[in-house]
């Protein structure tokens, strides 16, 4: 067993840290306040290759491993989780899904511009009445011979406006239930697609989240990923990897809050000494760092399994549930350590606390992760 990072992994971690501190941190409070997508910063992040970092270099990607991705996601999320979720959706869901299950023609046409960072992707699974329960898809993809006709509404879609390429999960054969679901690659500019207003969220406010409505949207047959009925399986396999991204995001939110709380506790004085000298604060910091280390190890273990081509669904569910839950705990304590200052925006920890909440909800709630975990341990 080796806990050391490679030279490349350290360089990627440092590059992500430098980018986050230099490009994302300035202006984050205003972007969060206004719910403004970091368009310019995303362009730079894409140019550096972060949006396609794991895709095969033959398709224009960085060819990096999942460990590097975890490290980069953590660093970006310390300062701007809304930027990190763009990275997560592009890398874990859209690019990985296309690269693993797409045809060569699909990869040539759709993956290449995504892997090179020229385009942004979105993954459209959630619906008004189907979030974590992805089997109950109401969006339909009617088989019309040479094309599918898409109708329905998708909810909470990250990158909905900024993306050019959508992967849409929709029901083709309702009688076959989840085995009738398909995954389709859809150009966002196809006639019949409309967006709802930008969601006014509690956290990750600058993430570009909308509902997407499909009204008789024609999708060529060749845009279906895999065989007819593969869509549900595709979504589940893709989400296994997506969980590593969101777990690493939660980890970054937690470590970003911890680093700020640690710094503050060594500067702020109360009762004649720095508050870090008070055991009540010191023990909070100790608890925080242990939780973060555990979360990091779970993320890295899941990433390592994925890189070794070993089953990682169980590990990624554990990483996602634990990292998200401790992100909520750690950010709450970081606000507590900051006292009144933690409750105002300049100190960032209140924002991180709002962001942490979402990691317990999206890409499978903590409760859904526990279903995955418990079913795995109880199945024999």
């Amino acid at each position, binding site marked *: 067993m080796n806990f050391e990072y490679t*030279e*490349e992994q*350290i*360089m*990627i971690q440092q*590059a992500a840290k*430098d*980018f986050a501190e*230099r490009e994302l941190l300035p202006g984050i409070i205003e972007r969060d306040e206004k719910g403004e997508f970091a368009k310019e910063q995303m362009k730079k992040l894409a*140019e*550096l*290759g*972060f949006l*396609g*970092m794991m895709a095969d*270099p033959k398709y224009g*990607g*960085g*060819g*990096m491993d999942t460990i590097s991705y975890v490290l980069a996601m953590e660093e970006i999320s310390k300062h701007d989780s809304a930027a990190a979720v763009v990275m997560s959706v592009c890398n874990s869901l859209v690019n990985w899904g296309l690269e693993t299950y797409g045809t060569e023609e699909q990869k040539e046409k759709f993956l290449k511009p995504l892997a090179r960072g020229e385009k942004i992707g979105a993954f459209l699974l959630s619906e008004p009445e189907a979030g974590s329960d992805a089997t109950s898809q109401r969006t339909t993809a009617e088989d019309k011979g040479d094309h599918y006709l898409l109708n329905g509404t998708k909810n909470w879609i990250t990158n909905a406006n900024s993306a050019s390429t959508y992967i849409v999960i929709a029901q083709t054969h309702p009688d076959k239930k989840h085995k009738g679901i398909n995954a389709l690659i859809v150009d966002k500019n196809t006639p019949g697609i409309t967006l709802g207003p930008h969601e006014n969220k509690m956290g990750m406010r600058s993430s570009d989240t909308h509902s997407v409505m499909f009204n008789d949207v024609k999708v060529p047959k060749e845009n279906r990923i895999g065989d007819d009925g593969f869509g549900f399986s595709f979504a589940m396999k893709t989400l296994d990897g997506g969980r590593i991204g969101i777990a690493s995001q939660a980890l970054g939110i937690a470590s970003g809050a911890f680093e700020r709380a640690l710094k503050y506790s060594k500067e702020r004085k109360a009762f004649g000494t720095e508050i870090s000298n008070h055991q009540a604060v010191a023990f909070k910091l100790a608890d925080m760092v242990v939780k973060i280390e555990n979360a990091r190890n779970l993320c890295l273990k899941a990433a390592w399994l994925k890189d070794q081509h070993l089953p990682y669904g169980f590990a990624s569910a554990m990483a996602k549930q634990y990292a998200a839950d401790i992100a909520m705990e750690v950010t709450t304590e970081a606000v507590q350590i900051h006292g009144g200052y933690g409750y105002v925006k300049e100190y960032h920890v209140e924002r991180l606390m709002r962001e942490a909440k979402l990691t317990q909800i999206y890409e499978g709630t903590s409760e859904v992760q526990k279903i995955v975990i418990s079913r795995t341990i109880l199945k024999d």
Partner: protein
Amino acid sequence: MKILVCISHVPDTTTKIKFINNNTALDTAGVQWIINPWDELALTRALDIKDAQAGAIESVTVINVGLVETEPTIRKALAIGADKAIRVNLEPKDSFVIATQLAEVIKKDNFDIILCGIEAADGNGSSVGGMLSEMLDIPSVSATTFLDIENGQVKLQREIDGGHEVIATQTPFIAIVQKGICKEPRIPSMRGIMGARSKPLQVIEPVTADSLTELVNYEYPKSKAACRKVDAENVKELVQLLHEEAKVI
């Protein structure tokens, strides 16, 4: 034109410095090593010029005098965008030894523009660039804050007290680079990082050169004196203390 950027391998500038062996050596345990920040700015400017003037700059090479442990730092420079690298396999003892090694390489390889950071963030010697100029008998421009090539002509600016001097020179020359040469160091791209190992890193053996100086020992800076408060009414005492004790007026 061929550009050479001389890079030093230095501890991260946030490192808490500790000395060992009776204060004769730096305790390198846990130290994170980086490209000397001024050298990184020089490299960034070299790459910016190369990008802006496709074809005018044949290559950007980085060189370091150091043992094998400096290679991750060298590869970082390759990841940032240098085309190739040279490592002179020698533990750098003093500025003279380093400059001697660099001069040997430069003589053989005919670089047109040689860039050095104004100082290294560890030893702060500020002397390699000037020594190189003397050894190679070529011009050097100190405290360079601007460098560009326009229609084949080199234009530089250097910092002077209260302003800038604009300088033209012929190649080859050495620019000793100060902050301001570029806005910020480049962040390596993902492809740059993954491609760094496939770029040439030539290791060459050093020539014989004796150090001209010897490090006796390091000393820590004196810890800051405690803050003294002078009564707001007592201006006379304040002036006296500033004059006699702090010696600032």
